[in-house]
């Protein structure tokens, strides 16, 4: 019997099988609170087939479905360009998929719900029917309170929408919204700090004090993973000769060729070629590979296009990259150039579609702007706790450069960068923080319960999730 009383002093956890949902532009992370990695990581992109014959099977979710070439398959993302959800219907569906496919699928025997048979052509009809049935019978979150994350600049309309979805569509017994910045700080064991989150669509800088976002200081900019991807695209286009960006699905078989030589692969042929949006998504995968293995941030101390930096870079050993079709080359100075725009707007590659980024959008300027908005008394403390997170912060040497930049701006404070070493912790920091928060016994009094929601309406989220 004694063991039933939780030793609250040491371990303040009290797990209520809450679900933590951390939607991002590139992936949605979902999992049970108290675990250390999200069980379910789904792409935020979803497939959409134009209704040709039957108007029912319109959406395709999940890694397996959206990466299978298919005629008429449009790839979309529910995020708006301002970092706030735009397509709420799609968002609801994608999120629900992320939750139900791995976490709360009620009957393991039901093969239509376990996410393994997604996109199989014959089952389309029955699957939809079944999902509807299930939804009528029981909502996906009947048993689990839901903790959702939101970007620091989320509009109050979007927040209310979130609680509406959770309460009404999913039937969650309780709900809470927390900002990604705060949660990422929690994941690093900090209650205060400046959180630099370099994701896919946006880079954000969030000052957090005692677990609360200082809203005036929140900064965001579009210079993040996608920006780097576009830089790489431009690099490929502008090289002489142009570097062909070939996604995997187009290649049937490849042969080894010399560096720089044109590829001699045999390509697949499609009756109806996949859409441009599909190709773009697939290209993005190759670009992510390129980012992971080739791109490097110029570590400083000088900017890349200043002084001898470029010369030094040229003399460093290059890194090879091979396209899916066998084309390969060693990249030397160029691999620094594509990431330099994150810190130095004037160094960014430009073309007609990609204008020069704004100076105030570079990461260093964001940090500066964020710090400027904080009370002078707290600035040194916050600068001593700079947490770096987000998938694109994994760019090689990014931390060195960031340290360098911050130290240049604030030479008189003790600046300390906290960047989790492991890839998982860096990519899923916000989710992990949510997992910690939602499994705390003391957190359970903060939930907005269904009853409260019904009493006060959706606006309660503004009052409670501060």
């Amino acid at each position, binding site marked *: *019997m004694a*063991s*039933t*009383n*939780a030793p*609250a002093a040491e371990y*303040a956890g*009290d*797990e*209520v*099988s809450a679900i933590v949902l951390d939607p991002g532009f590139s992936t949605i992370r979902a999992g049970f609170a108290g675990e250390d990695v999200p069980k379910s990581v789904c792409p935020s992109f979803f497939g959409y087939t134009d209704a040709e014959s039957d108007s029912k099977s319109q959406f395709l979710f999940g890694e397996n479905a959206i990466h299978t070439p298919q005629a008429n398959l449009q790839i979309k993302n529910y995020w708006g360009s301002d970092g706030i959800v735009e397509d709420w219907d799609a968002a609801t569906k994608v999120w629900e998929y992320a939750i139900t496919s791995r976490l709360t699928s009620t009957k393991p025997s039901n093969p239509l719900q376990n996410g393994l048979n997604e996109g199989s052509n014959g089952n389309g009809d029955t699957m939809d029917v079944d999902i509807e049935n299930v939804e009528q019978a029981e909502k996906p979150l009947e*048993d689990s*309170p839901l903790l959702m994350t939101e970007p620091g600049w989320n509009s109050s309309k979007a927040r209310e929408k979130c609680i509406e979805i959770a309460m009404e569509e999913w039937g969650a*017994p*309780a709900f809470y919204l927390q900002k990604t910045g705060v949660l990422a700080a929690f994941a690093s064991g900090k209650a205060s700090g400046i959180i630099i989150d370099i994701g896919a669509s946006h880079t954000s800088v969030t000052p957090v*004090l*005692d677990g*609360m976002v*200082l*809203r*005036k*200081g929140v900064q965001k900019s579009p210079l993040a993973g996608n920006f780097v991807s576009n830089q790489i695209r431009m690099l490929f286009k502008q090289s002489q000769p142009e570097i062909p960006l070939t996604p995997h699905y187009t290649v049937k078989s490849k042969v080894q060729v010399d560096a720089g030589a044109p590829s001699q692969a045999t390509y697949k042929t499609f009756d109806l070629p996949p859409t441009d949006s599909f190709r773009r998504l697939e290209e993005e995968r190759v670009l992510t590979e390129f980012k992971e293995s080739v791109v490097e941030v110029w570590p400083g101390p000088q900017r890349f296009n200043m002084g001898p930096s470029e010369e030094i870079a040229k003399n460093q050993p290059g890194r090879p990259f091979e396209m899916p079709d066998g084309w390969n080359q060693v990249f030397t100075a160029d691999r620094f150039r594509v990431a330099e725009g994150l810190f130095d707007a004037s160094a960014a590659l430009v073309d007609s579609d990609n204008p020069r980024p704004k100076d105030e959008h570079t990461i260093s300027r964001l940090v500066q702007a964020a710090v400027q908005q*904080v*009370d*002078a*008394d*707290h*600035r*040194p403390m916050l600068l001593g706790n700079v947490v770096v997170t987000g998938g694109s912060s994994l760019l090689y040497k990014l931390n060195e450069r960031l340290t360098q930049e911050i130290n*240049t701006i*604030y*030479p*008189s*404070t003790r600046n300390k960068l906290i960047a989790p070493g492991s890839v998982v912790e860096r990519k899923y920091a916000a989710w992990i923080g949510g997992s910690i928060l939602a499994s705390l*016994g*003391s957190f*359970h*009094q903060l*939930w907005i*319960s*269904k*009853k*409260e929601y019904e009493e006060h309406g959706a606006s309660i989220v503004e009052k409670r999730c*501060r």
Partner: protein
Amino acid sequence: MASGRDVRDMLGLPMGGDAPKAAQKSRPKPATGVRRPQGVAREVAALYGERPPPVAIYEEKKTYRAKRQSTGPAKKWVQQPFTNQARSDGLVLRHWRRKPTTAPPITSGEDTVMEDSESSEPYIESNGDFMKYNIEVEVPQFTDEEYDAHLRSNDWGREETDYLFQKIKDYAFRWAVIWDRYDFQAERPQPPQDDANGDSTALATLPFAPAKARTVEDLKARYYDIAAKIMKLRIPEVQMDAEQFAQYDLLTKFNPDLERNRKTLAAALMNRNMDEVKEEEFLLTELQRINMAANRLDAERDELRARLEAPAPQKPVEPGLTAFPSSQQLATLFNQLFQQDKSKKRAPGNGPAGRLSLSANEMVATPGSAQQQQMAAANRRQSVAQPPPQTPIRQLAPQQEIRFNVSTHDRLTSGVSFGSDKLLKMRQAKSNVQTQKIAAALAQLSIPEIIPIPTSKVGDVFEALIGKVGKLLDVRKVREKEEGECRVLEAMKTRRASESQAGAGDASNVNDSSANYTPAKSEVADSQDTPDVDGDGEDDGDDGDNDGGEGDGDADVDAEGEEDDDEDAEGEDADTSAAQSERRGSTSTRAVSAGHKRSASVLSQASSKSNKRLRK
């Protein structure tokens, strides 16, 4: 299983006779080498190679493992629904709990309940474990009347004040957050229309005046002001206890302008550029360096003083570690020894140091070393408890000592000194005049100013010589004095003879001398009473005098304190010099004053001197 045979097989190497040999070879190995820890696969153990594993491996013995207590079948756990006592809405969540075993009927009922997903009356736990974290801050409350009577402000409306207090409560006095979230909208005339508009841009364009932009200091000032006033209303100032009053005092003392200034300064401090920071850093290191140097200097001085004072004979002679109770002292000792060792190595063979301490290898080279070693060995055999033998001191024959230029000292001064310095010091006497006299005497003996090779022997001889010169000078002084007295007496005698009829002459002489004596005396008193009133307006005129007096006084004291004999001589010396200066009628006030003083002291000591002379 996976033996060398298999490996060979895999690699396609010839098998045959080699394989069993290898097996044989490998067999004895584990016996001789480190035993393979149990529970580690052989392949893994082989990876360690010959060396010990990089991490210590503790074999878990079965005996250490606590026996698993099997008290019946596996305990059941249930997802127990519970309400949180910190909540008022009765939200029911579920967490895993041991299924209660004490009440079988309930358990069975609950079991079914779980299955049916709470159809009937389930047991709901009421959980207050985390109530203690539910902390609300207290902000002062006030009524409308109180507000109207005391708390009105031109700058703040009632509504905004309430809003501020609400925010303070919400964010528990985190002023930075309060300020960040502070977004007071003056009362909206048409709320419904507002809702209809729905977005914030419309709000901003509405005609009424925008809310004032408040700084943190404004907010704080308002709150502290109200808090102080309410505190005073609740408890009159006189009734406050110390703590309350301190708080009240703090609340009333808040000055937003000061705070603002402080913050701009803080911000400026933070926004310094690299050069300024570098400069500050440089200055700070400089300061540190200076401080360290000062400390070192102080320490050196202290050491010097300690050396000059008592030689500390009570130090335990007994060797060993007891003399160094603290590890720090031990460390310094070690350092000293290390330094000595180093310096010895740097200058081998040339050993001006007094104590001849030989290191082990030197001992081997010396003829007596064999014996020494034997002794040491004997010692070792004799008893283990004996303290380690001290550094051996070798006795040398006097001849050898001279030959090797070895000398022994009771006490060594630290550092290096030059023999020439020593010689130079000997030339110096307590007073300038004496020094000059010595110099003159040496010159007479045609001893050069600088002696070419000031070996210690030369030093000894020179010392003896100087001693003799000093004595001679003393004797000469005494003689001169005696002669002078004789002259005086003779003069007196002649005077008395000339004025034999009148006896007043004696008295006048006494008066004369006393007149001569008094002012000097007073001067001495002056200088002793207030040694540091040099610049006092009082005796501006005879500043120089005073100085001189003071200096002389010092010298006097020194002389008296240290050597009696010398004092005697010096007194006479001063006397003679005074006499000379008087005779010369020198105009230098300083000299005159010295003369006065000297003569005074001489007069005051006249009796003792005469006593001494008598003794002699």
